[in-house]
């Protein structure tokens, strides 16, 4: 089973992402912010990362940069899932190593279709 690490400080958003991914047969690991996700990633491999941008302790763009520095995560697809839609932020995410950018609210069917393309 493919495992996806989903990172968001909103409990309800994590629940909805988790339900969407599990309904498509993916295993899900949750983290409430970038710091928690990075600590998990240092000891565990996942197949894809979905992260919010604005979070306490460590934001999503910093997280992506830190993950890209880990040998196991150089080639792992990483999607940003955020309310941010400005081109500047998207460029910042792309430079940090993000694979793609999804603006909330996400469409569950569209999210699953995107994951199938990336995995």
């Amino acid at each position, binding site marked *: 089973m493919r495992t996806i690490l989903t990172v968001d400080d*909103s*409990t*309800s*958003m994590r*629940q*909805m992402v*988790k*339900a*969407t991914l*599990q*309904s*498509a*047969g993916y295993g899900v690991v949750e983290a409430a912010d970038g710091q928690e996700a990075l600590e998990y990633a240092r000891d565990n491999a996942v197949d894809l990362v979905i992260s919010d*941008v*604005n979070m306490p302790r460590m934001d999503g763009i910093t997280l992506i940069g830190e993950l890209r520095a880990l040998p196991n995560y150089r080639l792992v697809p990483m999607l940003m899932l*955020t*309310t*941010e*839609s*400005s081109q500047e932020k*998207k460029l910042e995410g*792309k430079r940090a190593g*993000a*694979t*793609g*950018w*999804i*603006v*909330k*609210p*996400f*469409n*569950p*069917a*569209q*999210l699953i279709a*995107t994951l199938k*393309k*990336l995995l």
Partner: protein
Amino acid sequence: MDQDDIHNLAPLLLLAVRQLDAAMLDASAEAELLSRAVASLGERGAHLRDTGGDTTQAKALPIIADAQRAMRALQFHDRLSQRVTHVRDALARLHAVVATGEGEEWRKVREAIRASFTMEDERQIFDALVATGSRPKLQRDERDEHRDPASSGSVEIF
């Protein structure tokens, strides 16, 4: 605005901050319950689709579709929470300025408020109303102009 006005304004700003804190706490708990219920509905639908016979699978598909629509609609709470939090933080900054009389200068307050925004339409509204300072009230059609429905739900692979 004289010192008496400022003296009366400070506690009202603090009251607004506390009211928003209480409202957000109530809403978060209820939104969490609701999202859990919808997520559970989606999971049950997916289980029926994956394990049932043809008839069961056919019945499960509309349940999954309904759950997915509800999940999308429920994400309003995440956007709402961010907007309310930004208003709350802006009011708290104003309170710090008027209550102590030695807070940040107004320009710094405006810069800090704008920097705290996480949505493009928030920044556009701020720039239209506060940065220019020329229009006191945002009309309905202007709010619609500042919304960016095209970007909601968009997927961009780099």
